[in-house]
């Protein structure tokens, strides 16, 4: 699949059909995460794949931002030192977010729907999934076969969010050089 097609056509899916995902597909999605850029090649991310029905229900119930019953949850966690500096915090979050995007695109390329959730209870999730003290759940990815085809949400035009050389100087997307 063309990468630009995946980027443009992927949507956040919040309704899934009741159908499991093959383990091979999950492995491909997680491998895509493994190959995401990571600061200093530190790879301080850990992924918990939740597919058992009982645990999935628990994860759903402590995640007010998840409206669906997906085939799988992937909890993306960061591996932390005892004291996390602000700089480190940014790196960990960036690494997890980049890995998440790789997963979403990989899922789309495999014909699966997905969504990122941040509205979940970290405290409850740590309790339910036996997540150690020095590991922080950062994001949850929902995965499954889509039961909806959402329309693209409105996006700001490039001219509004991109500047040329200096902030507020208009940038023309298709201007010819020279």
């Amino acid at each position: 699949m063309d990468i630009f097609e995946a980027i443009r056509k992927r949507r956040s899916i919040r309704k899934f059909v009741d159908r499991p995902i093959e383990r091979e597909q999950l492995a491909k999605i997680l491998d895509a995460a493994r190959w995401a850029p990571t600061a200093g090649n530190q790879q301080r991310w850990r992924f918990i794949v939740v597919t058992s029905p009982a645990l999935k229900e628990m994860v759903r119930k402590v995640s007010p931002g998840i409206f669906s019953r997906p085939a799988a949850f992937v909890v993306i966690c960061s591996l932390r030192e005892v004291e996390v500096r602000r700089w480190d915090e940014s790196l960990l979050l960036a690494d997890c977010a980049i890995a998440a995007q790789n997963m979403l695109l990989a899922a789309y390329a495999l014909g699966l729907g997905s969504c990122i959730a941040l509205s979940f209870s970290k405290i409850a999730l740590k309790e339910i999934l036996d997540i150690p003290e020095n590991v922080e759940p950062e994001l949850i990815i929902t995965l499954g076969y889509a039961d909806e085809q959402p329309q693209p949400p409105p996006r700001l035009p490039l001219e509004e969010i991109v500047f040329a050389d200096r902030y507020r100087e208009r940038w023309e997307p298709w201007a010819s050089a020279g």
Partner: protein
Amino acid sequence: MGQRRVVSEDEAFELLVFLVTSARGCVDEPKLYGTFRLVDAASKLIGFVLENHPEQSEGFLRDLKQEIDGRKLSLMTDLKEYVEFLSDTTQKVAQELRRRG
């Protein structure tokens, strides 16, 4: 009117978990998410009631749940529509309250 509406213990507990985890989430999340959690909780409550009382399926509760579920996600794409949805829903609840006396 006045009939006893019950939810099962499991359903009540699920709603309780939703409310408590939402309360903690509201400390960090954008302010409007709190409003979303409240109407979403209302929808969940109606869903449980309807599951146990299907005879309510054509009534006010069914319509209200459909309204909430159909418009709540406008929070993510159209803030004006979302606030209108909250206003409309409030008005409908008030009208029903008045009708029930």
